[in-house]
């Protein structure tokens, strides 16, 4: 169906609706909102990575002139345990303890108290007056230390979930999970070639440029209004209601423009603190993190260790795949180990596999979702080892993958059977791409990797309002983090048959838009897009009714063509086509304004496959890697706005290149992060990067009217291994730990 569509607007590249405000500085982000009488809230953070909090005295801070509220964990309600779901996972009780420590500080930077005062400077001064007695404990800073016997415990109530019978002793291992199929031992026995490897990835941050920011105000009736930079204001509302024991109908959340999130803004930090201090003070409270706080207390993504083994026949056919993988969850359970485990072997037909995953707490900030959470780490391990397998088999790495690539009808390692997927198409496009065969110098190397993310559906709502002149207003509930207003407008315009320029899109707040899940899981263009299309179809059906009424014929005698109601072929009526504008102009006489709507729980999100080609040049004397070429190929199903799909592919590549080469949290022996700023936490700058070539493959997803599959997350999955494999090819050595920083590579080359 989709591939035979003759699209008029979908697939074009118009200017995004939010573009002018953004490039001229008019767009309002989280920190841009203010209210009269507003206070500034700041947070006191633990100077220790692991400590019992024995006593907190807010008295002197509260006594300071100009301080209107001061709170610590004791001021917050007790929160019942209960799963949060969504991309981030975790538990509301843990979320509450992360927002404000109760009796234990679990990482350096953990919030232990907060103050609201008439100025930020005054509030900071007041922080110095808060007295806290700590009993300092030994920090547990990595997987090895956390999983060691007799390791100090972060939480003595953690007994490994997923182990039967329940362990007798508590530990730092919060959960174990297993995926398996077939007979792993027989699979390895059947193999003619076996490769094994251990791969480590560091703690990394999402690196959004806009720090977390919010403004809260509560009236005397207990109703709160909250402006915040978030990927999902409905989930913020839920989380605030749980952590402050409020009714959701008493919380209005307005999502501001957002300066990057990448999964890290699917959770909350300051919002309940600001609301509580507004309640206490009777004034609005604004809270804005600085960059150091963002690094010390928000995000990050899990550091991981994967021990992986692959068995294959001499012709490359995989016979067995196994992986033991451990993910750091940070201070509270709930890493992205499970999605990592779901993705790791998903690209390959495999009869025998075993995946064993562990969720491990350490004294670092609680991890948050980061773009395809968990998948970049696990697939870095798998795709690095696939590369080694190709060397051992003396096979082209793309041919090896083609030999095993999943296609329609194959059962994914994580359960479902694939429908149409574009992995083979991506692999063939990679092999045929000129960048795969261009000549390299002696110090250069090329690597490829497959990427995968399953993509999500979830709940969305949309309304389409027709203005009196036939122009269109779309109201939906997904904060726009990657050009989604443009794609919504294009889908509405295509469906209704009106020009894109006549469509406006509002990201409604929790009181103007119907319930809509987070902008995450690469679900927005797919699921909310589907709601917008259905709401537009609702308009068409109403418009046809109005035309029938006007023409005094039966409704089933009216058709819709190119934005006009026309009599059905064969209907004996001599009527001029009625445009949406004409119908809208007379809507008062035909039944009132046209308002279409749809709400749904979208099923059938099409999984996203990608193939990346990285070309690097490694300086043999300094170990510095320059990425000289990068090609991102991905199945988008159907690219609604190709420029923004290309932008997603390029952005994911950039983040993945940073993860592969330079990004990492550096801690001292007390568990204090040494590089909490963009100077020494090195995301790539523009001059670090080559032009990133993109190829959009379109294998339509039949579950979406226009064939869309999510594209936002898959792009970050393949770059880690693509770069690592390119480095391996350049220097002839496999370094199985990221980042492949100059000191690490030089040391390996000198060995």
């Amino acid at each position: 169906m989709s591939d035979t569509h003759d699209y008029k607007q979908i697939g074009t590249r118009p200017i995004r609706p939010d573009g002018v405000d953004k490039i001229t500085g008019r767009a309002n982000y989280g920190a841009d909102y203010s209210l009269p009488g507003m206070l500034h809230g700041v947070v006191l953070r633990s100077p220790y990575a692991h400590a019992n909090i024995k006593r907190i005295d807010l008295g002197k801070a509260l006594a300071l002139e100009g301080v209107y509220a001061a709170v610590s964990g004791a001021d917050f309600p007790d929160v019942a345990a209960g799963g949060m779901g969504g991309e981030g996972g975790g538990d509301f009780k843990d979320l509450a303890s992360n927002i404000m420590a109760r009796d234990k500080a679990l990482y350096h930077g953990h919030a232990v108290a907060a103050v609201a005062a008439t100025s930020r400077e005054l509030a900071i001064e007041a922080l110095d007056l808060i007295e806290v007695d700590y009993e300092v404990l030994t920090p547990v800073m990595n997987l090895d230390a956390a999983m060691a016997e007799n390791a100090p415990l972060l939480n003595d109530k953690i007994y490994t979930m997923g182990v039967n019978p329940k362990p007798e002793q508590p530990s730092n291992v919060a959960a174990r999970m297993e995926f398996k199929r077939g007979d792993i031992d027989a699979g390895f026995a059947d193999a003619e070639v076996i490769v094994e490897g251990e791969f480590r990835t560091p703690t990394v941050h999402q690196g959004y440029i806009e720090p977390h920011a919010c403004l809260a105000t509560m009236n005397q009736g207990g109703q709160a209004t909250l402006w915040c930079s978030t990927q999902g204001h409905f989930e913020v509302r839920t989380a605030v209601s749980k952590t402050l024991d409020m009714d959701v109908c008493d919380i209005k959340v307005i999502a501001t423009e957002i300066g990057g999130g990448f999964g890290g803004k699917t959770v909350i930090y300051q919002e309940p603190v600001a609301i509580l201090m507004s309640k206490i003070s009777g004034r609005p409270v604004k809270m804005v993190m600085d960059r150091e706080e963002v690094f010390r207390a928000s995000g990050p993504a899990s550091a991981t260790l994967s021990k992986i083994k692959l068995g294959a026949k001499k012709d490359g056919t995989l016979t067995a795949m196994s992986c033991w993988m451990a993910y750091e969850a940070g201070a509270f359970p709930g890493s992205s180990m499970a999605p990592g485990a779901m993705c790791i072997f998903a690209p390959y037909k495999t009869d025998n596999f075993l995946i064993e995953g562990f969720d491990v707490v350490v004294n670092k900030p609680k991890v948050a979702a980061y773009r395809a959470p968990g998948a970049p780490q696990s697939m870095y391990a798998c795709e690095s080892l696939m590369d080694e397998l190709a060397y051992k088999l003396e096979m082209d790495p793309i041919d090896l993958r083609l030999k095993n690539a999943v296609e329609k009808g194959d059962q994914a390692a994580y359960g479902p059977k694939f429908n149409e997927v574009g992995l083979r198409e991506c692999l063939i496009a990679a092999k045929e791409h000129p960048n795969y065969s261009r000549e390299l110098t002696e110090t250069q190397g090329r690597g490829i990797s497959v990427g995968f993310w399953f993509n999500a559906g979830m709940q969305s709502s949309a309304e389409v309002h027709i203005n009196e002149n036939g122009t269109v207003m779309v109201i939906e509930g997904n904060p726009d983090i990657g050009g989604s207003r443009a794609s919504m407008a294009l889908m509405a315009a295509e469906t209704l048959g009106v020009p894109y320029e006549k469509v406006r899109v509002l990201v409604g707040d929790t009181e103007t838009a119907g319930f809509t899940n987070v902008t995450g899981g690469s679900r927005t263009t797919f699921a909310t897009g589907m709601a917008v299309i259905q709401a537009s179809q609702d308009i068409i059906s109403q418009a046809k009714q109005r035309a029938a009424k006007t023409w005094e014929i039966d409704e089933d005698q009216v058709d819709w063509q190119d934005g006009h109601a026309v009599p059905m072929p064969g209907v004996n009526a001599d009527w001029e086509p009625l445009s949406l504008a004409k119908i809208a102009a007379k809507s008062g006489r035909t039944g009132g304004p046209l308002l279409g709507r749809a709400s749904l729980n979208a099923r059938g999100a099409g999984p996203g496959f990608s193939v990346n080609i990285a070309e690097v040049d490694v300086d043999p004397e300094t170990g510095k890697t320059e990425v000289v070429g990068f090609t991102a190929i991905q199945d988008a199903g159907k690219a609604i706005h190709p420029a923004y799909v290309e932008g997603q592919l390029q952005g994911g590549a950039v983040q993945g290149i940073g993860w592969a080469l330079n990004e990492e949290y550096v801690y001292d022996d007390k568990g204090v992060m040494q590089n909490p700023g963009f100077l020494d936490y090195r995301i790539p700058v523009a001059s670090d990067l080559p032009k990133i070539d993109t190829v959009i493959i379109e294998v339509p997803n039949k579950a979406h009217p226009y064939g869309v599959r999510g594209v936002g997350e898959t792009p970050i999955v393949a770059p880690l291994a693509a770069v690592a494999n390119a480095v391996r090819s350049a220097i002839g050595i496999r370094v199985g730990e990221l980042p492949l920083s100059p000191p690490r590579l030089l040391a390996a080359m000198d060995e």
Partner: protein
Amino acid sequence: MGSFAYTAPKKLEQALAVLNKHAAEGNRIQVLAGGTDLLVQLKSIDSEPRTILDIKKIAETSQLTFDGDHVFIGSTISCAVLYENAELKEMFPGLTESIDLIGSTQIQGKATLGGNLCNASPAGDTISALFVNGATCVIANESGLREMPVDEFVVGVGRNALQPGELLLGLKLPKPAANTSDAYLRFIPRTEMDIAVAGAAVSVSLDDNGVCVAARVAIGAVATTALNVPAAVEALVGSALDASALQKAAEASSAASSPISDKRGTEEFRRKIVGVLTKRAATTAYARAKGEG
């Protein structure tokens, strides 16, 4: 950020009077040129009271002159202005490339050579380039002007030789002899917006046969201050910078370094690459001195 007093006198004597008053009363005073280090410190390091003395309005600090044997570079001239100066670039290509490495394009519109020197970061890019060009610091105090070789000026991490009541008026560089040129290289994991993990500056003078008759080698970010490396000079002088001379110079720089391990690199890594940088900077300086650069 704590509150502070701000003053921007137009006359050198007024500035010196302010400095002396604060010195006499034991009150904290900090000199502002471009402010690219100072303003960051103001925001992040402490909120103790201070006076900020802005010296940009003092005419002498913004002079750039090429009179006689020397070039004088006023201490508050922005890096962008210096980098755009063709005459300066022609004479000291290495020094100007070190100036171009400070911060970003925007930062270079404010940052100054004098500030980079006075801030005395071990990783300051211009400092080793000033070393190899034999720069002299021109220091003003109430008794007049005094001069001090730049390698005596930086005395420790963030510490310079200015006494209370003194300020850096500018830098004096001897115009390079014939067949002389310089180069500066630093190592950073990225391509820009970073701080040197190690740096090396080399200046060489050649005779008509391309043999090195004089040289200076200085290294940065591998000790508490930039360091001269006489053993590397010894390796280069008398050679045509053949592979063996370069290798010896590299080894001399590595041996002279005493780096630390931190978030920017390990001790071992820094020691190795400061040698590599020395070799590469020497090669570039040599080519420039021969007119090939």
